[in-house]
């Protein structure tokens, strides 16, 4: 999907395929790498437009990955930008849903 140049679609698809109930840490780590790649491919200026295209559950998943990335201190400056854009799209609810998951 990323090769097709449809980066926004790639981010959305990555959220849809998130391994939610997997107990295997490797699977989660691999998926996280994929998510970071997709999110990292979005240039800074386009972050807010991509964030707008995400639906609420996708927005929540994306927030989760932003916090996971920050916990691993991975690409923090762009993650902070993603945080702001997702916050605008999802509101405080998206953070509450991350905390309650």
């Amino acid at each position, binding site marked *: 999907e990323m090769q097709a140049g449809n980066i926004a679609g790639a981010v959305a698809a990555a959220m849809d395929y998130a391994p939610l109930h997997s107990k295997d840490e490797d699977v989660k780590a691999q998926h996280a790498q994929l998510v970071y790649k997709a999110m990292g491919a979005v240039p800074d200026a386009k972050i807010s437009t991509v964030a707008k295209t995400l639906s609420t559950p996708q927005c929540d998943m994306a927030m989760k990955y932003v*916090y996971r990335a*920050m*916990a691993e*201190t991975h690409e*923090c*400056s762009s*993650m*902070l*930008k993603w*945080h*702001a854009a997702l*916050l605008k799209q999802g509101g*405080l*609810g998206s*953070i*509450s849903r*991350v*905390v*309650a*998951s």
Partner: protein
Amino acid sequence: MANTLKTYLDAVRASLEACLCLTTFPSQQVERHNKPEIEVQSSKELLLTPLVVARNEDEKVLIESSVNSVRISLKIKQMDGMDQLLAHWFCRFLMQRAEQFIVLRRKAVDGFDLSFLITNTNLEKMWKHKLIDFVITFMEEVDKE
């Protein structure tokens, strides 16, 4: 530099606003006791996922919340030995006077320099937005030095 500080503090502020929804919760172990669950950690269902907001490897905030309390741990940027020493003294000075601050914790969480503990009783007496402003201003001031 100033730009990332603003996004960093905004992210912290938003995370705090979402996490500081506390309610009183009497202890399930001991009758008539009301303990901050994040400290006691008596039951898994009472604790929420901890959040990390990081600006880079040296500066991050860990927000651990539970039903009646939130623990906010800060890691201050320390670039060399001198900075480390100053940060250590500064934090010790503050932590020794933790009673004056009410929300400061006397001991920082492992790996962090300073910790705040906010419980539902604190929120009943103090305004939530003022408390968040306090934490954010604190971080700003420390960053300036």
